[in-house]
């Protein structure tokens, strides 16, 4: 197989990480909404943590993006 073709396949494979990130972000906001419906008064207090968790989870997706970029452009 041609090396450039393998590169494209590898970059595509690197995006599989998005599956986990999707589950993670859905889990964060889903848990927040179900928690907020049970105890609406506590909701504003934990929203900062929700955003922090969102940003940390989203960063995992971007690590995958960096790996895809590295496969495509560095090697």
């Amino acid at each position, binding site marked *: 197989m041609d090396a450039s073709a393998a590169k494209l396949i590898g970059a595509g494979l690197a995006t599989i990480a998005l599956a986990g990130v999707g589950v993670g972000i859905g889990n964060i906001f889903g848990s927040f909404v179900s928690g907020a419906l049970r105890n609406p008064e506590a909701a504003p207090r934990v929203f900062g943590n929700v*955003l*922090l968790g*969102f*940003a*940390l989870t989203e*960063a995992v997706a*971007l*690590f995958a*993006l*960096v790996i895809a970029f590295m496969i495509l452009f560095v090697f």
Partner: protein
Amino acid sequence: MHSPMEQFEIKELLHLNLFGIDASFTNSSTWMIIAVILATAVFVWGMRQRALVPGKLQSVAELGYEFIAGMVRDNVGDSGKKYFPFILTLFIFILFCNVLGLVPYSFTPTSHIVVTFAMAAFVFVGVTIIGFARHGLHFLSLFVPKGVPFVLLLLLVPIEIISYFIRPFSLAIRLFANMLAGHTMLKVFGGFVVMLGIIGGWAPLAFIVVFTGLELLIAFLQAYVFAILTCLYLNDAIHLHH
């Protein structure tokens, strides 16, 4: 058409050679200086009246100060007060770089890993030095989780050490990749607008408008995350897990 990656190109504005090191003045340095000047202006000019009932700009300056002061107080405690100026500077600098990068035709210094990694490495080395200065060799107990059987420790200690050394990289890559991905996405959709023309271009245009709002949130959020993670690392070094 221009490539969406072209916005990240570093252009030399003034050639400068310091003892064989290329220290040229680039568009990246220009935008960093603009960010510093604007941030200083907001704080100095906003606080010039020192009114008891703050005006608009003074409220912004006070809000930013209070926000970070509260963050340091909640996450590090009283012993973190010493490091508050550093964390405020870090937060404001990253925030201004991120937000100014959203202005069309501007440049985002934080979209370059060399900039973010310099900051992250500074935080990492600084926190490690603070830890060793405060606790001496006892600082190494950070790598040994409490109440774990000895057999498990053989596995956990290397993991803790690796996760400690991976911190500056994850801190740097998080900020850089967020900025890079967001800006690239905006430019790719900008290309769609041009390609689809006056008939179909409205849909990606609407997406860009919505996404710019989200990018503003991300710009703030990433500065916040960088600052709060610095606080957490500092807390680890000062209080050693308890």
